[in-house]
């Protein structure tokens, strides 16, 4: 089989001045994943590494650069799935880790469960030796500005995003 990888950086509206950053980021992620496939690596490793590239890139709403919740904190969700045996692992409402996709894979490989959430996910992360980062480390100026803008009384951020995906 000829290896193939496809990545996305999120659907919605991308401002003109940020387009190049998105384009560069998705290309880097795809090339990273493809290099793993070309060296005989698994699809699972390729998708995990491609997502890590984008979690570490402040342009994308994942990992570093995530949007903020109503309290101004980063809470993240992630899932990974292996088509070979339908194994899957996911985390939700997880905080203070740089790469939620890595933790999702640990849920898949080290537990009998499919999804760990919030504090449970954090306790599991510690037990697995996943380094904790300060929540502040995951916040960018842009995400904080958007959060503040959405606090205005007349704004309705969730509704305003529905049309954007």
């Amino acid at each position, binding site marked *: *089989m*000829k*290896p*193939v*990888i496809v*990545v*996305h*950086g*999120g*659907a*919605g*509206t*991308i401002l003109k001045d940020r387009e190049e950053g*998105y*384009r560069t*980021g998705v290309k880097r*992620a*795809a090339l990273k*994943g*493809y290099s793993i496939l070309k060296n*005989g690596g698994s*699809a*699972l490793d*390729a*998708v995990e590494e491609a*997502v890590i590239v984008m979690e570490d890139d402040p342009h*994308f*709403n*994942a990992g570093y650069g995530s*949007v*903020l*919740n*109503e309290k101004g904190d*980063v*809470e*993240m*969700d*992630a*899932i*990974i*799935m*292996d*088509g070979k045996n339908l194994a*899957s692992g*996911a*985390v939700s*409402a997880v905080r203070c880790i740089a790469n939620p*996709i890595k933790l*999702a894979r640990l849920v898949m490989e080290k537990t009998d469960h499919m*999804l760990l*959430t919030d504090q449970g996910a954090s306790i599991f992360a510690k037990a697995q030796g996943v380094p904790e980062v300060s929540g502040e480390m995951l916040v960018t100026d842009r*995400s904080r500005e958007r959060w503040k803008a*959405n606090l205005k009384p007349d704004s309705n*951020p*969730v509704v305003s*995003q*529905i*049309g*954007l*995906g």
Partner: protein
Amino acid sequence: TVGAVAIDSDGSVACATSTGGLTNKMVGRVGDTACIGSGGYADNLVGATSTTGHGESIMKVVLARLVLHHMEQGMTPEEAADTALSYMKERVNGLGGVIVINNSGGWTAKFSTKQMSWAAVADDQLQCGIYH
């Protein structure tokens, strides 16, 4: 939200999706990404997909599994992606995007929002896009 789908030289497929969610969301709000079949799905017998967009809408139609369902009925990745996104738009007025790969290496990146950044590498050729 970010995501990836891949098929390796053994013919195995996989998906991965990661997100910070919706800006200013309620504390504890969990969207589609962590829900298997909504934020992503992978089955060697069919293919793999990763989704992005309005999470509550994606969960209502179980978008990732819906795309694979259409491919199981014989649709190409393009047809399956378009059909599933149209259903989400008509049924719950939800917009979003999907990347899809089937188990013979066919792939697509489709979205009903204004834009979605995507990239793909196949046959050593890199392609990327943002607009329709």
